[in-house]
C-alpha cells in the first residue's frame, strides 16, 4: 500500500512536470525526452487502422469520407515532413511561404488520393501484428484482408522526430508511398517547368 501511494505520487509529480514543460512550450522541442517505443508505435497504427475502418464503414458520402481522411492524415501522419521529402531538391530553393502553402495543398492532395485507395478496403479489415525498431524508426507490420483476395502486407514507418509519434511512410506489398509520390511530384513539377507556385495551385484540384 505505501509503495502504491509513493508510485502514485511519483506519477503525478511526473505528469505535473510534464504539464509544466508543455506549458512552457518545451514539449514541442524536436527531440522529446520520452523516447518512442515499439508499443507506442503499434498503438499509433492501431488507432489509425481503427479510424480508417470507422471511416470506410461509416456509409458516408465520398466527399465526407475524404474530409475524414484528411483529418486522419493530419492527426496520425507527419504531413509537413512527408510533403517536403516528396518535393525533393525543389524544396531547397523554395521560400518558407511557398513551403507552407505547398504543404497545405499537399495535405489535401494526398488525403484525396489515398482516401480513395482506402475505400477499396471496404468490407475488409487490417490486422496490426507487430512493431520492431529499425535504425532510427519503428516499423509496424499489418495485414490487410479483403474479401475474395489473398491477404497482403502493409508496413507503417513511425517516428517521433517531429516531437510526436507519427507515421511517415506506408509500404504496401513492397510499394513505398514516399518513393512513389516523389516520382509523381517530380513529374508534376517537370510538367510545369519547375514552377512551384503553379504546382501548388494545381495540387488543390488534383
Amino acid at each position, binding site marked *: 500500500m505505501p509503495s502504491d501511494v509513493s508510485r502514485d505520487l511519483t506519477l503525478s509529480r511526473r505528469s505535473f512536470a510534464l504539464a509544466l514543460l508543455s506549458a512552457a512550450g518545451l514539449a514541442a522541442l524536436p527531440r522529446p525526452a520520452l523516447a518512442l517505443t515499439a508499443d507506442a508505435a503499434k498503438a499509433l497504427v492501431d488507432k489509425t487502422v481503427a479510424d480508417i475502418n470507422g471511416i470506410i464503414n461509416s456509409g458516408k458520402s465520398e466527399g465526407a469520407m475524404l474530409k475524414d481522411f484528411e483529418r486522419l492524415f493530419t492527426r496520425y501522419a507527419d504531413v509537413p515532413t512527408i510533403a517536403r521529402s516528396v518535393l525533393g531538391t525543389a524544396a531547397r530553393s523554395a521560400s518558407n511561404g511557398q513551403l507552407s502553402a505547398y504543404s497545405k495543398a499537399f495535405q489535401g492532395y494526398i488525403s484525396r488520393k489515398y482516401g480513395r485507395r482506402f475505400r477499396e478496403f471496404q468490407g475488409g479489415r487490417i490486422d496490426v501484428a507487430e512493431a520492431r525498431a529499425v535504425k532510427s524508426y519503428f516499423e509496424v507490420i499489418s495485414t490487410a484482408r479483403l474479401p475474395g483476395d489473398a491477404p497482403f502486407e502493409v508496413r507503417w514507418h513511425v517516428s517521433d522526430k517531429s516531437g510526436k509519434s507519427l507515421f511517415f511512410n506506408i509500404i504496401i506489398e513492397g510499394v513505398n508511398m514516399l518513393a512513389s509520390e516523389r516520382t509523381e511530384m517530380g513529374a*508534376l513539377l517537370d510538367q510545369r517547368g519547375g514552377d512551384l507556385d503553379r504546382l501548388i495551385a494545381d495540387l488543390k484540384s488534383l
Partner: protein
Amino acid sequence: MGLNIPFKSWLALRISALLMAGSLVAACAAPTGPDGIDDPFEPANRSVHAFNKGVDRALVRPASKGVGIVPEPVRRGIDNVADTLSLPGDIANNLLQLRLVDAGQNTLRLGVNLTFGLAGLLDVSSELGLQGAPTDFGETLHVWGVGEGPYLELPLSGPSTARDAVGLIVDTALDPVGRVLPVREANAARAIRLFSRLGDRNRFADTVDSLLYDSADSYAQARLLYLQNRRFQLGQTTGADAASNDGFIDPYEDPYAQ
C-alpha cells in the same frame, strides 16, 4: 610443343569464359540509379508503354468491363480453374528452386482441387487454409543467383526485367498445360487464363486506372511499382537486413535528400 598450343587455347577459352561470366555478373549487378532503377532502354521502353496504354484503352479496359458483368460465382469458378492450370508450372519451378515445401503445398492443392473441387472449379484448398505458392521461372532464375538486369516494358505483357522476360519466355515455352493437353483443351485453357487476367484488370480497375491515366508520368510509376513489388515478392526486401535495401527513406535525416 604439340601439347602447348591446345593448352594455350584451352586457357584462352577459359579466361574468355571467365571474363564473359564476369561481365554478365557485372551487367546483373547493374549500375542502378539512386532509387535502385536500371533503365538503359528508357526511350524504347517508353514507346512500348505508350503502345500498351493504347491497347489498354482500346481493348483491354473495355473487355475487362465486359468480364465484370459476368456473375461473380462464374468468374470465381473460372479464376479457380485458371489457378489450377498454373499449378503444374508452379510445381516445376518450385522443384527447380529446390523449394520442396512449396512444391508439396502446390501439389497438394492440385490434388485436392482436382478431386474435391470439381476439376478445379472450386478452390477447396484455400478454404482448408492451403494457400498457393505461385511462382515463375523468373523467380527460379533469381533463386539461381541471376540478377534482375535492366528494366524492360514488354509489348502487351507490361513491366518486366531482362531476367523476368527470359522467365516469361521459358514459362510459356515449357508450360506443362500447353504440352500435355490436346489442342482444343489447350486453347480452352488459354481462353480461361485470358478471361481470368481480364477479371484481375477489372477487379483492380481503380488502382490500374489511376496509375495509367491519372499519374503525371505513368511510365515511371509503373516501373517503380513493378520493381518494388517484384523485389518484395522475391523476398529481397524482407528479413533481418530488410531496412538496408527496402528503399527505406528517412525524411528526417536530410529533408532535402533526393
